[in-house]
């Protein structure tokens, strides 16, 4: 009824190319952005900040990063945890070596460093493909975690190898450490998500994104029509790692405030992010975000419901939560193998025709 494009005429190419071609979508998008950016910060408290929003934003950035590489360029990576560690340790080194540095620069610096490391580990992708590449990136995962556990310089020779984020600010507003205000860290992370999701969305629609998708769909054909696989694959690795590095930097410095490599950046992290994009939808921006919400928020939601409301013992609630989420993953993947984003897309198609589908 309301969700349709009848009467909305596009008179320029620009309008035709819009991300949200239907007015209803556009309004809903901007309205939700307004609520998230300008309303929630007034109400957000420590619990919502630390347990819900920061993990959701940060994992969304990581999922977008991995989706660029895996969903758009077709290169499977299991190195996400390791690349997040690069971002985290870079931000730690930058924060402690240059105390006056603004957090924005620290986080972007972490992204750039991770991009360089990601490109290095992306070089084998020119020769090896598919599952074999996944194994090569798995090596990156284990190597990087081992490195940060072993190389004392990276954790400033502390006795335990644990890194702790000191208090730092962004334009004078404290965003790391225990004294940061919930709204400050919330907006800081949200700004990163918004800006870089925007960028990613437009990247994949442009020249680079098209070359990635050409490589994904058939690399030999892509090469024949003039896509340079070296450039396409390495740029995908670089940009993907840049995002993951930013997520890693935020994860350590803004969200948790302390980390040790073996626990915080283990192989589980790589799987989590990979599952996010598989469940959310490969090659879809909204899919990355839905996937992150699914993996990050559902456990918290189930826990609050089972323990807080129903009063179950904590261990039974924890096991049930694992079972529930596992079943939901299976359910969604059977219903829609292309992820929740595809489900969302079908729903929108149906809505457009409702109530007279053909």
């Amino acid at each position: 009824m309301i969700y349709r494009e009848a009467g909305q005429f596009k008179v320029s190419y620009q309008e035709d190319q819009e991300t949200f071609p239907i007015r209803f979508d556009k309004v809903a998008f901007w309205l939700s952005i307004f609520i998230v950016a300008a309303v929630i910060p007034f109400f957000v408290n420590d619990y919502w900040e630390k347990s819900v929003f920061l993990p959701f934003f940060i994992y969304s950035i990581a999922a977008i990063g991995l989706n660029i590489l895996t969903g758009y360029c077709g290169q499977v990576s299991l190195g996400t945890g390791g690349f997040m560690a690069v971002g985290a340790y870079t931000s730690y080194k930058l924060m402690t070596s240059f105390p006056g540095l603004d957090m924005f620069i620290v986080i972007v610096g972490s992204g750039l460093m991770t991009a360089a490391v990601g490109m290095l580990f992306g070089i084998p992708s020119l020769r090896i493909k598919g599952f074999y590449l996944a194994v090569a990136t798995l090596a990156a995962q284990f190597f990087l975690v081992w490195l940060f556990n072993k190389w004392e310089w990276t954790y400033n020779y502390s006795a335990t190898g644990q890194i702790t984020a000191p208090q730092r600010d962004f334009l004078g507003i404290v965003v790391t450490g225990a004294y940061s205000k919930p709204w400050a860290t919330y907006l800081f992370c949200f700004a990163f998500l918004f800006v870089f999701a925007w960028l990613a969305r437009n990247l994949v629609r442009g020249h680079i994104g098209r070359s990635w998708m050409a490589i994904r769909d058939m690399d030999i054909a892509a090469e024949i029509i003039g896509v340079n696989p070296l450039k396409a694959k390495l740029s995908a690795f670089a940009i993907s790692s840049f995002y993951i590095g930013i997520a890693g930097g935020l994860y350590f410095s803004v969200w948790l405030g302390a980390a040790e490599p073996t626990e915080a950046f283990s192989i589980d992290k790589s799987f989590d992010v990979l599952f996010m994009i598989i469940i959310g939808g490969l090659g879809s921006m909204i899919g990355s975000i839905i996937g992150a919400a699914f993996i990050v928020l559902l456990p918290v939601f189930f826990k609050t419901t089972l323990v807080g409301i129903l009063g179950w013992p904590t261990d039974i609630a924890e096991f049930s939560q694992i079972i529930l989420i596992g079943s939901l993953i299976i359910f969604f993947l059977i219903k829609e193998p292309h992820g929740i984003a595809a489900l969302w897309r079908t729903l929108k198609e149906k809505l457009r025709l409702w109530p007279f589908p053909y």
Partner: protein
Amino acid sequence: MKKVTLAAMSAIMISSAVPAAAELVFPLLSYRTGAYAPNGIPIADGFTDYLTLINERDGGIGGEKIKILECETAYNTEKGVECYESTKGEGSLVYWPLSTGITYQLIPKVTADNIPLHTMGYGRTSAANGKIFSHVFNFPGTYWDAASIITKHMMDVEGGSLKGKKIALVHHNSAYGKEPIRTFEVLAEKHGFEFITLPVDHPGQEQKSTWLQVRKEKPDFVTMWGWGVMNQVAIKEAASIRFPMDRFIGVWWSSNEGDVLPAGDKASGYKAIALHNTGTDFEIYKDLDKHVISKGLAAGAGDHVGEVLYNRGFMQAALLVEAARNAQKIHGTSNITPAMMRDGMESLKIDQARWAEMGLANYAPDINVTCENHGGPGIGFIQQWDYGTKKWNIVSDFIAADRSVVDPLIVADSAAYAAENNISERCN
């Protein structure tokens, strides 16, 4: 939008989950699931049972009932933070996360939120320096004390000198396991022994290569900083390479019945340092039987009573209850706040007479916390496992840590923390 409705729903749920306060709230960040559950369950049960006993027998502390807020962390730092944030607003008096990783996350947070943190024999050792760490307590002993005590015991076994000997540390490859390395290095220099480290990665199920190295290196002693499944695997592996068990000494976190039982009688002779006594031969266990177990109020499956880690949870609860009593006395009110609880912990004194009054005679050493010293006496004793009787036997007197080694290390590490975080010294 999906996420907004989800958020709104759980908002309603959380607000309805907040109880009407006026009780003493003790959060319990436990782990009954995951690779560390074999050790997490008994300690959580012991803690819960002690507090249930206080509620049932005495009607709470100073007339105020105790409420336990249990939250599952699965030994995972992300979940630990979620647990902390979700419970701190409900009047939580004191945290004990039972994880060195979570401790490191909480140290700055509790200080900012003015809630005490008690990491009994784990966590950041240099938090023993109360001049720098105002809200963190780790009495009655630290890892560095443990390293020194274990070394002293090895010297006793060797007849006074460790010169030219080789000591291997099999440790969990995490902040927890790495914590004692520096102390062992200093001790190695002082006593002239060779020190090697053998890290074991999480979760520690696979240790073949570690023990192959032990065979190759032939150390005179092996000491272990293990947790969870790592403990039982290590003890089994040590038995299978026929390493002499009485030269294998674990820290107090590697000494549960569940750790030694899987290796069967081959584990006999395995030693571990202890913070407190074991078994159920104490007055209080009669009360526990009467008020808790026979009424069917025991926590969990109720099958861990008297185990080493169960007793550790018991002791944890006992110390916190005493601290709460102390806080009530200092501030003259029964309804204490976290800030008052902190004061209560900072001036906590328990002598043997008080331990006996609590029904725990000969259970643990004297506790004497001061503003400067949050690390407590730093003494422990060595116990040895006997598979035949299924009991830990105490084989040494109380051994005091070498303060001349431990204290300078604490000062140096806490000074580094203070410099990093712009903290000025208190207690002056």
